[in-house]
């Protein structure tokens, strides 16, 4: 039982410090590595509460270790200990001290809750509509006329007003580095205001159990400096969606036959704009396929042949009836979408 002293005291703090280092080099997914005001304010509260709680645990552990050490039964001890009824003073003490600690914790909690819930000014913020579907994310910039999926681009230094809802079951939107999460409820609009203060790629995850591939319902928030973001918007408004090679033309034809019932590709001249699958405009620029796999040709091929292997239970049918050549035509076309 002596082990606990070490574990509770030093361990708590040490481990925290050590593993903050870990996970570097990858897009950030850690609460401990905030990249925006919301995340920072939440981390501040986490540190404050951890501090108070560590104190509590240390006090309890200290008394505990002393008691266990000091009052263990010695061999041959026969005497019956004094039967103490209680002590009003002590009991008041350990009622009042926790209350004080809790008040110290409650005040910043309340103020941060209200601050983080504040509506942003429409002029100074950018609105993005988020819709969650079983295992993928649809993003729409209503003021910019741009749609995308699974990867959302934002400018740094701007409050982004995510308005979210769900197309089927409940999902939750969580980009740990930027800030806490918010549920996407069908039939209800929710809001989450996030801001990135440095460019970078921030991992996001769905955190509400939503079915077989809940574990794989990932997205990325990609923060650009404002100028770069403008460029991105421009390229999205004017995507290069026409095939460049004969193989790709073949692919485009196949897409029009097989895919556009579910997927939309802006600027390619398709009449139909499917909405039951992710918008594939500029798909070639995505870093990942379906949020989980690195975006390269082999992976894309495998995905088209059998999406279920990658994401069990997802809503895209397998296209294994297409020939090898047809698949590579599709892949060619899709990877060229920029």
């Amino acid at each position: 039982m002596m082990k606990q002293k070490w574990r509770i005291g030093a361990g708590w703090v040490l481990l925290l410090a050590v593993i903050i280092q870990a996970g570097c080099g990858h897009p950030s997914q850690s609460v401990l590595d905030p990249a925006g005001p919301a995340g920072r304010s939440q981390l501040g509260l986490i540190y404050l509460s951890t501090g108070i709680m560590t104190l509590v645990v240390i006090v309890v552990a200290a008394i505990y270790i002393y008691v266990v050490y000091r009052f263990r039964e010695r061999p041959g001890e026969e005497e019956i200990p004094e039967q103490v009824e209680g002590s009003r003073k002590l009991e008041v003490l350990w009622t009042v001290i926790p209350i004080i600690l809790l008040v110290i914790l409650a005040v910043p909690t309340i103020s941060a809750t209200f601050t983080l819930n504040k509506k942003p000014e429409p002029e100074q913020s950018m609105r993005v509509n988020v819709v969650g579907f079983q295992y993928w994310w649809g993003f729409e910039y209503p003021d910019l006329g741009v749609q995308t999926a699974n990867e959302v681009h934002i400018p740094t230094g701007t409050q982004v007003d995510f308005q979210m809802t769900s197309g089927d079951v409940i999902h939750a939107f969580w980009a740990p580095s930027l800030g806490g999460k918010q549920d996407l409820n069908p039939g209800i609009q929710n809001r989450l205001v996030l801001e990135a203060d440095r460019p970078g790629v921030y991992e996001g995850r769905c955190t509400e159990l939503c079915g077989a591939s809940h574990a794989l319902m990932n997205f990325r928030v990609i923060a650009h400096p404002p100028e770069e973001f403008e460029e991105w918007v421009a390229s999205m408004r004017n995507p290069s969606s026409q095939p460049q090679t004969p193989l790709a033309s073949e692919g485009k034809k196949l897409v029009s036959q097989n895919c556009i019932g579910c997927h939309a590709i802006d600027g390619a001249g398709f009449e139909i704009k499917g909405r039951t699958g992710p918008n594939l405009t500029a798909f070639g620029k995505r870093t990942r396929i379906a949020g989980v796999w690195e975006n390269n040709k082999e992976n894309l091929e495998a995905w088209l042949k059998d999406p279920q292997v990658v994401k069990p239970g997802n809503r895209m049918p397998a296209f294994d009836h297409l020939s090898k050549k047809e698949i590579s035509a599709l892949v060619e076309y899709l990877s060229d979408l920029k």
Partner: protein
Amino acid sequence: MATIIILIVFGLFLAAILTGGYNKKYLERVQQNWLWEWITTVDHKKIGVLYLTAGGFFFTVGGLEALLIRLQLMFPDNRFIVGDQYNQLMSMHGTTMIFLVALPLLFGLMNVIVPLQIGARDVAFPFLNSLGFWLYFSGGLLLNLSWLFGGAPDAGWTSYATLALNEFSPGPGVNYYVLGLQIAGIGTLISGINFLVTIINMRAPGMSYLRMPLFTWTTFVTSALILFAFPPLTAGLFMMMFERLFDTNFFTTHGGGNVTIWQHIFWIFGHPEVYILVLPAFGVFSEVISTFSRKRLFGYNSMVFAVVLIGFLGFMVWVHHMFTVGLGPVANTIFAVATMAIAVPTGIKVFNWLATMWGGSLRFTTAMLYAAGFIVMFVIGGVTGVMLGVVPADWQFHDTYFVVAHFHYVIIGGTLLGILAGVYYWWPKIFGRMLSEKWGRWNFWFFYPGVHLTFFPQHFLGLYGMPRRVFTYPSGYGLELNNLLSSLGTILMTIGLLFFLYNAVWSLTKGPRAESDPWDGRTLEWAISSPPPEYNFAQLPKIRSLDPWWAEKREGNRGMQPAEPLGPIHMPSSTYLPFVMAIGFFISGIGFVFHSVRVGVLGLLIVIVTLFIRSFQEDEGFHIHPEEEVKGT
């Protein structure tokens, strides 16, 4: 329907053949069979043992599910159990542990001990007691049958609406969840009422409320919580059932329903439920710590009051599970403050336990080891709970492994350690044999570090961005080491529990006989033989103080003073009706699971018919004459 009847007949037939052919003696023989005795018993001690056994069985099941979960999560990008399969395991693990393991094991202890502690001959409603058990058992069985027929529920133990509706969970899985829990839930409610009436009406002369041992007090408050927490669950399950069977529109948005209603209902039940789980454990620890410190419980009155207050506040905090739903800052903060407030009465309890140990002479038996281990572990889990109550921080923590760490720390650190401590403490009383202290130590020293190793790293997993209920996680985000440690810890826990299993079997077969008072106990149950006679007390004892048995011993008395003259004791006769009724519910459950309203109604008819039979039955009971036996002593 025909199939079921055929199956039943066939089963009886088989039983008849296996036991020596059907003839006139068959029924007689059945009635002398040990199984029959257990099926029809209304003795609270036997029902307690039934609860412990069934709970232990489901614990093994739930634990194996946990093992598989940890096996899958041991390494990143593992493909051992994926997708729906994983979700089934995870949902069944949670559901099993909460509904079929934790509470029933506690019920087992309560059933055996509470009547003894208050000096009663039995619980108030022996019939309902048996019914409660059989309903729980058939509900649990129904739930677990899902593994064999049609797939287990896979929408989490919370079974949030829309995911759990037909459209997104088309198989029978969630039907099993709804009906299994409905049946088990009715059983729980019945038991809750039974304990309340027992404690209010059946206390021995002189056993005033403020002389009741803490375990009885916590049972009392827990039962009151059950009384108000389970009906909302029942209502919610009804809605879910209609939604799935008859396409109603409580939760579907296109029918005008609202998805958050289920969440409110579930957590109005769910939060009190976690205190239902932990309060009895608090009771166990209060008894164990006081006994093995050889001191009276420090601050008895505030301990009692803290329990009441926790129960009271427990109903006011459910929204802390819904901070991310979007209910607005005002609602969130009020529930945050209420949540934090619960730390105060809980803290009072923790410090009072420490103060009880202070100045005592601590004897570290296995039960006491568990109690001592509990204090630190529960405080860690409790304070992370308070951290979860900090709304903005919870937006980060919610639905991550941080929460998983929190609740395993409190549930295992509180409830499970409480059950283990209670089992070690009362085992001699229940079974009349001693457990081995040596194997007990092995058990503890594997299990306890194992728990910390399993769940402590999970706090960090949450902070590094690992959501819960995921079947896999990518490498490269700092999640590997902690997951590996966590899985390794599980192995330690399992080994520890195997030692317990060995210990139990050893004790039941070879263990030394227990004396009536092996621990120098303080409360009434230690004043009678181990195991107690069927009627518990030949003469109802007269309670003359708090910790009555301790007080009498200090006075030099060798037994409690009787409050009545020796005389024949009236006992209720055993009955098979509860079992039949449970079968009725079970059949009805199966019917509804497979959308067969006819079978469903048939099952309910069986229930109603048995109810009426019961109503017309004149149960005379029988009398025991302990005079002859007792005179000698």
